[in-house]
């Protein structure tokens, strides 16, 4: 009864706004250590509802007190992250933003051009293209750049004496998000024994996420691509472009 009294267009508007804000926060936390905190909040909510339904007043009240305290604690602990969420909120569409097709094509061409140039110079490279699954954990292990993507920038990062050339680069939202990132090494026994650390890291990241990971071997300049734990070796820049186009156009 009370619910129908309270439910009007204003309530729906409030819920929609709340939904947008909560979704942006979830999206931001996805792939970070803070995602565990989200799970904790969900468990608290479920427990609160369960206690309420079971009619356990003391536990309900206790959890209500704790919930209020917990929210204050979250604000204090995650103050820098929350500030970033608010900054990001103004920059993007609330629910979905896909880079323009032309922009996506430009980004792919820049990546492939850089890969080709690095391959010709036999400069080792490790480039991850983030898709759905967040890579915050790995971004945080490197140096955050958030720089506009260009072939020249990628080549500069992997220049052998450059400070950021070790580790991998993460690309997402049309930007070079971070460089010098540590990727997990694959423990796949089926990989050839001669597979180097860079290629193992590429396979490892592709096993742990849906990212597309490109590697350039510094031994022979060969280009490889890891997708879902599978490594495809000796690609030409054109092959790479075709595969990347296909993969990124694929609905997931």
């Amino acid at each position: 009864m009370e619910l129908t009294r309270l439910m009007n267009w204003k309530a729906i508007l409030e819920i929609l706004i709340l939904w947008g804000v909560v979704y942006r926060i979830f999206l931001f936390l996805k792939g970070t250590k803070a995602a565990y905190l989200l799970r904790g909040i969900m468990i608290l909510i479920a427990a609160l509802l369960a206690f309420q339904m079971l009619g356990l007043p003391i536990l309900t009240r206790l959890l209500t007190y704790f919930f209020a305290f917990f929210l204050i604690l979250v604000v204090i602990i995650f103050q820098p992250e929350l500030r970033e969420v608010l900054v990001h909120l103004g920059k993007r569409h609330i629910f979905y933003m896909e880079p323009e097709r032309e922009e996506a094509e430009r980004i792919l061409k820049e990546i492939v051009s850089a890969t080709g140039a690095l391959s010709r110079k036999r400069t080792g490279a490790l480039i991850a293209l983030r898709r759905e699954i967040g890579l915050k954990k790995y971004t945080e292990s490197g140096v955050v750049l958030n720089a506009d993507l260009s072939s020249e920038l990628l080549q500069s990062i992997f220049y052998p004496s450059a400070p950021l050339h070790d580790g991998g680069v993460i690309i997402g939202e049309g930007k070079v998000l971070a460089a010098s990132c540590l990727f997990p090494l694959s423990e796949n026994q089926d990989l050839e024994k001669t597979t180097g650390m860079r290629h193992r890291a590429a396979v490892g990241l592709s096993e742990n996420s849906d990212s597309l990971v490109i590697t350039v071997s510094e031994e022979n300049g060969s280009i490889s691509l890891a997708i879902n734990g599978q490594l495809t070796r000796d690609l030409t820049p054109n092959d790479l472009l075709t595969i990347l186009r296909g993969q990124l156009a694929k609905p997931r």
Partner: protein
Amino acid sequence: MEFFRRVDIKKAITHNFWLKLAALIVAVFIWLYVSGLITSGGRNI
């Protein structure tokens, strides 16, 4: 109008579907909690 023409409704819904659903559940919970329909909404704290 150009903006609306560019929006792919199906993709907007299916993209991160579970995250959107979880966010909706949490948003509804927060609203119900604050409005006092679940527990006392912290009003008696």
